[in-house]
């Protein structure tokens, strides 16, 4: 019972961790490169959801100082938002790199299936 109420109270974190798991398994198990990259993005976005939820304080506003009001009771925690921004930059660059690798592989082997590419490489014996 206690666990149930905890899960209900922190539903956003539960969703974030579930999404992280979905993304992680997709990145690990999918054969198709594009699906793998989608999994990667789901995984990263789940982390941002987790961080955003942690930084949010009920009833507080975005951390932009207005009318000289610097009271901490007005604004949400700005640090997680900063981390999310940094994380997005990192995630965009690795996604771009993965996509460029996928394009290279597709041009050479005309398939997006990584296992098939490996099979073909083994057959070529290169």
């Amino acid at each position, binding site marked *: 019972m206690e666990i149930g109420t905890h899960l209900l109270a922190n539903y956003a974190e539960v969703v974030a961790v579930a999404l992280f798991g979905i993304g992680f398994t997709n990145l690990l198990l999918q054969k198709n490169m594009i699906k793998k990259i989608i999994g990667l993005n789901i995984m990263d976005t789940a982390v941002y959801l*987790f961080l955003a939820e942690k930084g949010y304080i009920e009833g507080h506003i975005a951390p932009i100082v207005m009318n000289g009001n610097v009271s901490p009771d007005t604004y949400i925690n700005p640090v997680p938002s900063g981390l999310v921004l940094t994380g997005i930059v990192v995630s965009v660059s690795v996604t771009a790199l993965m996509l460029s*690798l996928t394009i290279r592989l597709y041009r050479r082997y005309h398939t997006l299936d990584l296992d098939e590419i490996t099979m073909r490489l083994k057959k070529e014996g290169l």
Partner: protein
Amino acid sequence: MEIIRNFPCLSILLAMFSAIISSALKGAGARRLNTFVVTAVGVLSACTLYFTHVTGKSYVYVMGHFPAPLGNEIRFGTLEAGMALFFCVIMLFSLNGGREKIRLEIDPGKENLYYIMVDLLLSSLLALVYTNDLFTAYVFVEINTIAACGLIMIMESGRAIEAATRYMIMSLLGSGLFLIGLCMLYDMTGHLLMSNVQESVRQIAAEGSYMIPLLVTIALMVVGLAIKSALFPFHAWLPDAYGYSTVSSAAMLSSLVSKGYIFLLIKIIYRVIGFDIFVQSRIINVLFVFGLAGMIMGSTSAIRENDIRRMISYSSVAQIGYIYMGFGLGTTAGMVASVFHILAHAATKSLLFVSGVGLTDVADDNKQFIELTGAAYRNVCAGLAFTVGALSMVGIPLFSGFISKLLFSQAAVQSNLKMLPALIVLAISTVLNTIYFMKTVIRIYTPIKSGYPSVFAKDHPLYALTLLCFVALNIVLGMCSQPIADWITQGLSVFA
């Protein structure tokens, strides 16, 4: 003397800006700039090492204008400075050893791109070594991954691109786990600076609240970094990535990239979680078991391998198993042995990769064993260097591998429960190492008449000089082990 406190920050910036400048330079210019920067960073690190060794303390360098709980920091002591110096030395040697291959195997128009990646790799390694901020560490882990992926795929063969893709996928899984682990840790402690996190973690552990989340967090971070540094069950990407890239890349990937992650893990163990709390968690037993499994499985895979480059790569899996086994012992002696093995393995493995390429060159680029018969007579200096590397990996006295095996056994004896499995597996692993390395050494020294041409040291002075430096480094690590072990112990004591 006080000016030396700026050197760690300066060396990170120097490496990073050289990468930016290299993008506007041609191949030769980028190469010269890279050599200059690696040497300069090495000199700066040596100064830092001298300074921290004389004072015997560690220093905090504030980045930006915000003080401790909010801002970003660099922190350095003897261990960090020594590691930075060592990484520079290995990087310089690996690049010089594979210089001719880089020129041959990489499209001339893309040579500067290669050196951009090397510069980025250096800056991210330095940042991983010096940073005191967890999120900064994550960002540089990703930069390191991207740079390493670039080093693999620069060959542009189908095999290399496929290897780079697999490397990238596994690395991203690892950094995803590391990222969610560090976000949970931030959630529990409210801090990102390592020293502040540790205070909060100690409080949590003392109160006994949040013990399960703490355990999950430690597990996520450790597993994430273990995937990235190719601990046994996660090593599937490694042989392809090391086997099909250019030789300098393979040497740097095995001796620098994976070691950078392991060093970050040591920092997390000592500085974020706290060594005693880490030992109390049951994670170390998991690391111990997987370390032992890696020592055996890596070696058996290496025995079965018929390709010299892939054999050396599989041997890395076994050696990384040693390092994690040292963590798993859960004593300071085990940690010292692991740190020493990081140095010994880095020095030896890059020597093996660089000398291995000399042997395959005199067999018309054939990596199969049968073609390598008698290769040591056709390239005497590569053959000798390979023998030294093989002897060191097997653990013959005089060379560095012996000392790390000795330190591991001494550490194992101090531990009650783990003594027997550790010693037995060490013995088995040594025998297995001997089988595949001596098999190779006997093969390259089997005299045979063959149509392949011979290569002489005087035609490749840089290559021969590099091999000589590697051998010297190995012997220095093997002969002057006591001062080095003392330095590691002292460095670890000011670490926390």
